[in-house]
């Protein structure tokens, strides 16, 4: 009888201790400043390093196997095509160098701030955010590769998002359409500016996002193309983002909203480019 009571008391004490530890820890973690919280996240993320390394190794092995199974003639053909494309692009670049010089000279005359020019690095998508209510991806470039928070991320088709968190070997990217990644954009046909943000329908189709703060008398119409405006501190101008699907005008309102279909299908992304800029303003 006495031992039963003793066991009951011990169990009660263990509940009290566990509840105390969890309550204090939860309060502490939720009230941490964002920088300290990011550091703890990076530390916790170190536990996954062997798994991500293993995954990278597997991808490399499977890539090598595919490479070795391709016929030599096909590889030579692709090499030839790539050389020709490279030559064409170099010629284009030489032509644009002149335009860039002229642009820089005009900007100096007008006393405008020059555009920050960075280099882009290819990153592989290694995972996706675990929560269903955010839209993020993980890439295999990190702080050691020069990636910093807020660096823009893009793909061949258009803008992907911005770097949200960085660890030494990995980074988390908030995709366009995530509430944590709002983008200032302009409609190319009308030159009107607005802000791309998550909308209720983004949960159903992640490629559909909302465009808010368009003028009330907007001339924007479906099929118009949306580009980054360059007004944002993080995203350079003229990166394609999406196409207008529909425009919603409400009577008496001072602004118009639109629905935009993103050019990049984030669910199929395998590789992305991170625009590494030398001096990036941190949020």
């Amino acid at each position, binding site marked *: 009888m006495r031992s039963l009571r003793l066991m009951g008391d011990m169990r009660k004490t263990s509940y009290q201790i566990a509840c105390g530890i969890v309550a204090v820890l939860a309060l502490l973690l939720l009230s941490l400043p964002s920088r300290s919280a990011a550091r703890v996240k990076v530390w916790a993320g170190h536990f996954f390093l062997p798994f991500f390394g293993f995954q990278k190794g597997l991808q490399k092995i499977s890539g090598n196997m595919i490479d070795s199974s391709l016929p030599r003639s096909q590889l030579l053909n692709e090499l030839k095509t790539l050389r020709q494309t490279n030559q064409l692009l170099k010629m284009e670049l030489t032509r644009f160098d002149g335009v860039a010089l002229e642009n820089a000279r005009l900007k100096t005359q007008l006393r405008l701030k020059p555009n920050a020019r960075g280099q882009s690095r290819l990153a592989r998508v290694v995972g*996706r955010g675990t929560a*269903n209510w*955010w839209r993020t991806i993980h890439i295999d470039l990190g702080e050691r590769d020069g990636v910093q928070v807020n660096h823009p991320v893009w793909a061949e088709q258009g803008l992907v998002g911005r770097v949200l968190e960085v660890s030494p070997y990995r980074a988390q990217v908030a995709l366009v359409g995530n*509430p944590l990644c709002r983008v200032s954009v302009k409609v190319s046909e009308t030159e009107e500016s607005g802000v791309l943000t998550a909308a*209720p329908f983004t949960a159903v189709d992640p490629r559909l996002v909302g465009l808010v703060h368009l003028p009330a008398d907007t001339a924007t119409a479906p099929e118009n193309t949306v580009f980054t405006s360059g007004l944002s501190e993080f995203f350079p101008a003229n990166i394609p983002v999406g196409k207008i699907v529909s425009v919603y005008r409400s009577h008496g309102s001072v602004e118009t909203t639109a629905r935009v279909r993103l050019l990049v299908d984030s669910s199929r992304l395998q590789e992305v480019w991170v625009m590494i800029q030398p001096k990036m303003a941190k949020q």
Partner: protein
Amino acid sequence: MNCFHTASILLAALIGVFLEAVVTLPRDLLGAQVNPLPALVVYAALHSNMATLTLLVICGSLWQSSLSADPLGIALLPLFLVGVFIEINRGQFARRERFVRFTLGAAASASVPLFTLFLLLTIGHEPIVNWFSLWQWVVVTVGGGVLTLLAFFVLDWLKNVLSHNTKKHAYLMTPDMGDPE
């Protein structure tokens, strides 16, 4: 109870969270990703002690938030509340029954995202939530139940492999009634 059992539960949580980030098949097919932690919390609450449960909840929520845009440790309280509720009432559940395991896993998987969303909205975040989230919630609930069955199968097997069962090798004085829990 031995430290190998605790370590195997923590390792399962680590691998589970990693697979949640890497395997995108459920998200591509059903539109939602299934969380493995509630299933493991159910297992730990029924088959382990309070220390293991607390350790699982702390480590699991930290690991999960390191791979998501959630605030750090947001799932800590929801997971712990669910775990403690099951632990307190563990004597009342027929834990060997598959249906009970499935139901407990599904109920835990259903309540953890609700608590987490409530906390997120309370501290001022704006997660993407609409009517489609109800479908995601259903997928997470059913998927969580299935994952609980899988967790019991794998972790029970690991427990048997890792722990030395003296009764198996001892002389039996009474008819063998099978392995005790």
